[in-house]
């Protein structure tokens, strides 16, 4: 079994310099380009494929081509990782503030040994496409559309500007596949129909549409912020939060039909959508 310290090529350096925090920082930098000890080993990559299917494919898809929740890992350019050592770190510890969990905590699989993580990295590298397709869209026009005629920003925020009813899309361009983004725009309810386990939800909430009629006959429509058997917390299209007890409501209904309209090609052309994706990608890649 490989231990992490065994595979660091700068280990002698680390051993010499372990006397201070400053030295640790230096050693970390020295290790930054550390390569996978199993790099370019086809057998390791094959073993990594098994591990990938068990531990990663639920979000990142078969073949590492991305899913509705996890980014396409066949892209050579990755948002959170550059070197093999970065990737090892991310797989081991997860990415705080995202749905990427630490090794062994995703409810799938049983956690991986260091050797198995290096095998997965070997597999991911073997699947990478070195020259990803260039975005065909116009970033500036996409931004104009997002904040203007396409009305995206009425509900969605990007970099602190926009609405709160839908998910914040600041990072979505760097983490979701192009196909998933197009699907979300053309057919927004489809993703809501997916059954997601708690640990693999794309966003903190599922954006189910809630319609209630209060005891005094007032109808409120919005999306669920949270819900249990007895209470519901929701936000309406005016960004008002409502905290309600279900047993005090005249009616309560929940739908997986998204409040977001379907953007068909007669409303948003393929070219305009391409421009919006280019804008989201430019922001998401930051």
């Amino acid at each position: 079994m490989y231990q992490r310290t065994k595979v660091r090529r700068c280990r002698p350096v680390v051993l010499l310099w372990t006397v201070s925090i400053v030295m640790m920082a230096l050693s970390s930098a020295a290790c930054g380009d550390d390569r996978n000890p199993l790099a370019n080993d086809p057998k390791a990559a094959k073993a990594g494929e098994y591990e990938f299917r068990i531990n990663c494919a639920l979000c990142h898809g078969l073949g590492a081509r991305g899913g509705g929740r996890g980014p396409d890992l066949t892209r050579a350019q990755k948002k959170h990782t550059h070197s093999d050592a970065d990737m090892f770190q991310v797989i081991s510890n997860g990415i705080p503030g995202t749905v990427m969990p630490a090794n062994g905590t995703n409810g799938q699989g049983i956690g991986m040994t260091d050797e198995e993580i290096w095998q997965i990295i070997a597999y991911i590298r073997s699947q990478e496409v070195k020259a990803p397709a260039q975005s065909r869209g116009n970033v500036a026009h996409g931004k104009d559309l997002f904040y203007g005629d396409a009305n995206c920003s009425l509900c969605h925020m990007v970099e602190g500007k926009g609405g709160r009813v839908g998910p914040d899309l600041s990072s979505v361009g760097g983490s979701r596949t192009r196909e998933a983004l197009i699907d979300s725009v053309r057919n927004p309810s489809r993703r809501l129909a997916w059954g997601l386990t708690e640990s693999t939800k794309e966003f903190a909430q599922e954006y189910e549409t809630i319609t209630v009629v209060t005891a005094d006959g007032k109808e409120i429509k919005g999306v669920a912020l949270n819900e249990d058997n007895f209470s519901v917390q929701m936000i309406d299209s005016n960004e008002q939060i409502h905290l309600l007890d279900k047993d005090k409501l005249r009616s309560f209904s929940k739908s997986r039909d998204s409040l977001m309209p379907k953007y068909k090609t007669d409303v948003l052309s393929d070219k305009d959508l391409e421009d919006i994706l280019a804008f989201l990608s430019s922001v998401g890649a930051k």
Partner: protein
Amino acid sequence: MKVMALSAVRPIFVLFCAIAGSAFAHAQVTFDRLLNPSKEPQNWMTYSGDYAGHRFSALDQINVSNAQKITAKWVYQTGATGKLETTPLVVDGILYATAQDDRAFALDARTGRPIWLYQRQLPGDVRPCCGRVNRGMAILGDKVFLGTMDAHIVALDAKTGNVVWDVAAADYKTGHSFTVAPLIVKDLVIIGVSGGEYGVRGFIDAYDSSTGARKWRFYTVPGPGEPGHETWEGDSWKVGGAPAWNTGTYDAATNQIFWPTGNPAPSNRGEGRAGDNLYSNSLLALNADTGKLDWYFQFTKHDEHDWDATQVPVMIDAGGKHLIAQANRNGFFYVLDRTTGKLISANAYGKTTWTDTRDSEGRPIAKKEASPTLEGHTVCPGALGTTNFMAPTYSAKTSLFYVTARDQCDTFSTAPQPYEAGHAYYGSAYFPSDEAEPYRGFLKAIDPATGQIKWQFEHTSPTWSGVLSTAGGLVCTGDAEGNFIALDATSGKPLWHFQMGGAVYAAPMAFAVDGKEYVAIAAGSAIYAFGLP
């Protein structure tokens, strides 16, 4: 003893407790006491509360007429992170429970104040499947017993938490572990192994409660020359899985334990292990003294969907028949004659698409097209099953079987995977199906006589909580959103709830101290106890 009686004769009872309480506090927990839990309903001495697996409390101080008044009495924070799956034991005012990473502790059951804490020093390379969980302990004499993540059985002094004996059952490095609450029969500590995800060869063990010496082992995958060995292709039996990770039940009349088994390994790939793969996904009737097999019933033959049959088998005596019922992970509710192991009925109690035929015994048989494929296709139930380890309950008062259920389908995919000792051995993975309906979770009340669902309560999302029924006419359960809920056992109407602030993966139990009834459950990282004001 009924709590109605407790209320009526409270002054006498309190006096009785004052006199007898201290004597009880030092009384040994004999096998005779474990056999007769109905004589002391204030105690909860086994995982399921009795040997029949009923998880039924004869206490009725808390009941349908006063459930709205239930209030939190105490909370004990375990300091652990992750899931709590423990069912506490309570004996003579002391509560014994476990938490992640093989913590065990004893509390004052009236206040939640700790008496002792045991924390196992686990090796750094333990990697148990599905969380570092433990479902509880067993008690006998002056000892409590737990199985550990590193595949040991440990006996602790019930008064101090000190280790009395500690024996290794198997090598944790090859994927063996224990998560199950052991079962005491006579002077034996009976326990089943976990590790189906690693391709262990499953077993059920019995240890001398005094010394820790192993008295018998039953391998759930037969070796060469043993009946059933022919149901495995080549050497696949050596890594065949069939773990035994949930607590069985015991019939003193026949001296048989009924122990359920889990999936064959690899879980999602049948190629390479052609045959029925006995005794995976089966119910085993074993002689409690010797571990010899009396009969078996295999629920899912040659399973390729990870549908462990490890749900608690519940003994029900009705119409002069001695039955055993199981709400199985594969979506069917089975009733067997427990004297013979013959199938009496199998009725779907959730969404199932994997079968449309029965064999000559009436057992549902998988369709060929239900097998996982390389790219995957959708089958219901999903890999998590219609139910899973969540403990069910049976109330003789309502004659209903209550079980947590989920409707969820998954896309099952498969790919060849070589066995490597100590490494995951699934033969693939499963995914949420985007063709399927959203997940739905329920508490279902099933009539075992007909298999019909009498009522169901739908949760906001599927829960992993077990269920308790009581003589007070209540069923109690938890939900994924953190609520503890008491429902009317007859109608399914929720009567009361409390938000505990953490998801529930454990099953509730009930006990009484000083004439006051409590209902306890683990949620988040804590144990909660509830009672009347």
